[in-house]
């Protein structure tokens, strides 16, 4: 009872740490939960562009502007060149276009007037270029046939009406599961940070030489004390997990999490929280200085989140980094989240890889418990 009381007294004293990492999860987890890409209906992406039209809105120029309004997201208020340059750098604008004076007349006369464009480095800039060049190429082809300005515009419009049929083959809209995937993958950092910091702080307080000596001569057996500490560590970690699940329901929505997918995310995160507790238990045996705990925690939590795809999706990580990440439990936890998102039907084939990942995280937990026991025994012998 006394041991438990002391445990929770220290935990409550450090509640600021829990609040801090929870805010980080909510803030950056929300930023991470961008809009998704998978739906059951095809919808063309509209790149953001800026158009400086120096021509009158007549003939081909009018047709071009109407086409751009339909196929792109035209941004305004970029008269300041520095602002536009910044927007292009940060990929808020994919492409800036300058339509020269007398463009519609020049095209009708069969000339090929110059159009200036500045594109960002992003993928959507390439899409914007494809969209813009499509119209200009059609205009250029018809211009070579000496049509009148009105006929030219009409021909271009008629040609652009020709579409292709798009069949979308996905039967399940998996896009709604990208949000929980990103939330739970980012939670890798928050779970590790919260669990390691608090458990290491508490254990370091109990491991201080004078406290340890006092405990050794007390009536409570050392083994019993260790058992109580371990039990309270587990209760604390369970509390952290429960908090993040509740916050998940609030931020993601109960309709998404109250499903078989949600159950899998929940089980996966619970198993990872248990693993994080065992990691914290091992570290508490190795790190005794309170000032060093924060550094160790940051290296472990940030390192595993960066290397395993907690912050940056795994598909963007270099193969060598991902190969190295296989030795970390976070990799299997985050990979399982990604696999849950990709499930289209619940059968043995789709569930088996997820079960395997969860089993590997459990194996890591056992390995950490064995390591902690080994370190304890070794230290006892030295003492």
């Amino acid at each position, binding site marked *: 009872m006394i041991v438990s009381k002391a445990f929770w007294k220290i935990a409550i004293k450090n509640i600021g740490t829990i609040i801090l990492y929870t805010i980080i999860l909510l803030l950056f987890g929300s930023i*991470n939960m961008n809009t998704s*890409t998978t*739906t059951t*209906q095809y919808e063309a992406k509209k790149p953001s562009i800026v158009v400086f039209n120096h021509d009158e809105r007549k003939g081909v120029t009018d047709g071009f502007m109407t086409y751009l309004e339909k196929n792109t997201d035209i941004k305004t208020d970029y008269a300041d060149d520095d602002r536009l340059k910044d927007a292009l750098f940060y990929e808020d604008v994919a492409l800036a276009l300058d339509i020269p004076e007398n463009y519609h007349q020049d095209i009708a006369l069969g000339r090929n007037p110059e*159009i200036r464009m500045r594109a960002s480095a992003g*993928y959507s800039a390439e899409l914007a270029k494809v969209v813009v*060049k499509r119209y200009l190429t059609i205009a250029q082809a018809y211009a070579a046939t000496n049509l009148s300005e009105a006929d030219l515009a009409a021909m271009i419009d008629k*040609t*652009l009406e020709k579409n292709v049929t798009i069949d979308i083959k996905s039967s399940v809209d998996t896009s709604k599961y990208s949000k929980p995937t990103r939330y739970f993958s980012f939670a890798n950092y928050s779970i590790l940070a919260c669990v390691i910091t608090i458990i290491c702080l508490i254990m370091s307080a109990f491991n201080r030489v004078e406290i340890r000596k006092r405990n050794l001569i007390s009536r409570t057996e050392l083994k019993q004390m260790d058992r109580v500490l371990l039990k309270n560590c587990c209760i604390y970690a369970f509390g952290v997990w429960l908090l993040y699940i509740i916050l998940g329901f609030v931020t993601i929505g109960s309709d998404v999490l109250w499903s078989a997918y949600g159950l899998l995310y929940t089980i996966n995160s619970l198993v990872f929280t248990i693993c994080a507790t065992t990691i914290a238990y091992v570290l508490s045996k190795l790190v005794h200085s309170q000032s060093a705990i924060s550094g160790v925690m940051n290296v472990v939590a940030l390192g595993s989140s960066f290397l395993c795809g907690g*912050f940056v999706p795994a598909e963007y990580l270099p193969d060598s980094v991902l190969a190295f990440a296989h030795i970390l439990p976070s990799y299997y936890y985050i990979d399982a989240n990604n696999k849950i998102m990709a499930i289209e039907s619940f059968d043995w084939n789709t569930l088996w890889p997820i079960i395997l990942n969860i089993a590997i995280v459990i194996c890591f937990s056992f390995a950490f418990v064995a390591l902690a026991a080994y370190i304890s025994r070794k230290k006892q012998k030295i003492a």
Partner: protein
Amino acid sequence: MFWHNFKFAFKTLIKNRELIFWTLAFPFILALLFNLAFARLHDYDVFEAFDIAIVNDESYQNAIGIKSAYSALSEGDEKIFNIKYASREDADKMLENEEIEGYVYIADGQIHVAVKTNGTNQTVLATVSEQISQSVVMVEDIVATDIQRSGGQEINIPEIAAKAMKIVSEAEPNVKDESRVMNIVSIEFFTLVAMACMQGAMISSEMMDRSLPNITNRGKRVSIAPTRKSVIVGSNLLAGYLLLFVSVTLLILFTRFVLGIEYGSNIALMLLVAVVGSLTSTMMGMFLSVFLKAKSGAKQVIVLVVTMVGCLFAGMFGGMKNYFDEALPFVNKISPVGLITDGFYSLYYYDDISRYVVNIVSLLVIAAIFFALSVRSLRRNRYDSV
């Protein structure tokens, strides 16, 4: 006396392992992690040809124009597609297993595109397929126009068709591409250096606390020593500043020459940001120590919050600087982290240095304000009780 005190202040600083970890080791570890995590992020964003399948049946073989258009788009340096020819069933399987982004088949003389998801590659496939489909319409239109213009005279259809196909295939708009290919990931490293600079506020705050009698016992001892306060404060701050400047410079050189992050071509101006940024954060630490009668832990939390919020606004954690510049334009103009980041950014992205100069002058003004306020408060202090 100044150099004697400086020597011991510097020695005690470098023996403080916790401080050394956060100011020296931690930014290096983060730089390494950033480099590993973001290495492919920029490359990934650059357009690369992607895999599609084409159902190679009789309809496709008969559509000669369409066939040659797809074939042309899968060849050369600027190819868009890596094409795999397959039966409809195999194409379906490949799409299901996500081996391809989509597939194309011809039915009733029309192009059909099958995709699994809604994404940028899928939009490119659909847009280009539309373009091909429209090219066919264009050839037909041009041929029809020429027949109409002939006014009943004898015409050579194959010749007109060949001419129309030539017009369509040779149509090339006169587009002058003035794009500059820059790496958005660089901003993460600029903010990281800015963050490392701001850690200096922790060092200078710690060094100032040692000189203030109302904060530490060491301050009480130091204040009754027969040494001028300006000598003690000056030597302590110089030791902290020097350590910070060396660590920030090492970080810049490490990211520039080991990790290959671009900062622009002018190394002297690049290092000037480190000189001025370190000075500003040192003055900020001095200001905090003088005006905030709190434990060093509380001051560290304030420095950490100012730094991390500044980093978020300056573009760390996802490059949202431009978003915040639009929403709250004044923040990055007064935040030292924002100014340091923008200093590096303007060196990297802009051809002239006027924006860079504004950033450097703003940092110097902030440092001067912190310094003036701190000195004003420190002068002629008398304590009734400490």
